[in-house]
């Protein structure tokens, strides 16, 4: 079943067109990644889904809702979680407060407390830092908190923007493992990644974006061997 559909999206920054008739589908239960170089429009796609930016044309549908005209808070309430680029934790608030901010759109206090416990099991490292200000955490720890924060909203779909950016290889592995764990628990993942080989290693399906157009999409396993991908993203020239 298709959970998220972007249909014929055209986006502009002032006079500059960023997306040209973008079509993307995310099937329930999958990890779908969007690959592309800089300025290809990857992060803008995230903004469109999250309602931070309005497309000039096209529709975004999610789980029976038309997201196109909805504000960001409503979109979050409809069941989308976000792990923004560069984590964007609330640095002056404690880790605990950050996690509870993730459940901002919910009002079931008991269940929230239960979910908080569950997150601490899933991310044991976070437990020790629960009372620390989020700004004092290392990059890897911040990424964990950002993921836990998104999960606290009990989303059907999590949008992740460059989850491995700036992380050490150790943490990159850890984060990728966690993405798979979360996905196995039934959460659909839509992620934007620079690092195509890593992304394709865990994704089910992938789209390749180039200057605002999808030039390629397919099962991740087959794309990993596609010569066009190797040339453009996997250092095929060497």
């Amino acid at each position, binding site marked *: 079943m298709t959970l998220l559909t972007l249909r014929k999206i055209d986006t502009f920054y002032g006079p500059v067109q960023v997306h040209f008739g973008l079509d993307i589908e995310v099937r329930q239960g999958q990890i779908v990644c969007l690959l592309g*170089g800089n300025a290809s429009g990857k992060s803008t796609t995230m903004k469109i889904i999250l309602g931070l930016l309005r497309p000039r044309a096209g529709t975004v549908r999610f789980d029976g809702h038309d997201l196109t005209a909805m504000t960001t808070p409503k979109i979050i309430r409809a069941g989308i979680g976000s792990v923004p680029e560069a984590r964007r934790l609330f640095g002056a608030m404690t880790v605990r407060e950050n996690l509870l901010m993730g459940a901002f759109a919910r009002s079931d206090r008991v269940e929230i407390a239960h979910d908080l416990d569950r997150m601490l099991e899933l991310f044991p490292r976070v437990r020790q830092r629960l009372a620390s200000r989020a700004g004092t955490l290392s990059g890897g720890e911040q990424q964990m908190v950002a993921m836990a924060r998104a999960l606290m909203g009990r989303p059907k779909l999590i949008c992740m923007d460059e989850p491995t950016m700036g992380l*050490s*290889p*150790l943490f990159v592995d*850890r984060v990728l493992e966690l993405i798979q764990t979360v996905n196995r628990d039934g959460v659909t993942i839509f992620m934007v990644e620079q*690092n195509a*080989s890593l992304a394709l290693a865990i994704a089910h399906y992938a789209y390749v974006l180039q200057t605002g157009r999808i030039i390629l999409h397919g099962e991740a396993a087959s794309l990993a061997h596609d010569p066009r991908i190797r040339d*453009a993203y996997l250092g095929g020239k060497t």
Partner: protein
Amino acid sequence: MSVMLECRSVTRRFGGIVAVRPIDLTLHAGEFLSIIGPNGAGKTTLFNLISGHDAPDAGRITLEGVEIAGHAPETIAARGLARTFQHGRVFANMSVRDNLLVGAHHRLRAVKPRLPGLGAVAELALALLRPPGVRAEEAALNREIEAIAAIFGDRLTPRLDQPAYALSYANRRRVEIARALALRPRVLLLDEPTAGMNESETLEMQHIIGDLKAGGQTILLIEHKLDLVMRLSDRVIAMDDGAKIAEGKPDAVRQDPAVIEAYLGHRAMGEAL
């Protein structure tokens, strides 16, 4: 080989947290030294201490034998140390050309007399009067920065007169490196120059940095992309939790158990095996 940059027992604390534990570092002329380590290990803080954007609580830092610890960044830059920044700090409202010319600022001679006290007044007067010497210097610098832009192929040259905010992220990173080169640095500090670049762009950057090294440039690099580090570095330092945990040839550091434990993890170990 002469020692270009040396750190001895450099320490930095923020409140109760020790960001950099007493650390030693030596960089020789023409050498390529990389620092790896997890986020929060203190790599960028160490860079800030060396470039003068932060002052160490203890320890000595010398550049070509001259003590620079705690000196202002502009003084250290004038001694020939250039750096780039982790997240990129281009002058967004200025053209690429002006960004690069600012990089050459400390080398201005004709227009920037070093008279004590009255230097600023003389500089203002020369800027307004623009005598031939000043004009010639400006023209020479313009030619020079065009040559530097050309290092990046056709990435920057056609965009010299565009404002930096109109550039793509990767191009902004290139502008930053070009701007640092315009300083004609004795020592170049690069802080994650390929962050946010995809694999082919990373490769392109690797060639450019490799060419710089081949040209004899002394380079200190912070980088997560191990391929690039392993290919280019003469030596590698691994840091964790503010301290140096390993130092040596790239392969030796890569196989160091402490580094694998703290940083590389089992995947890298698996590859190494």
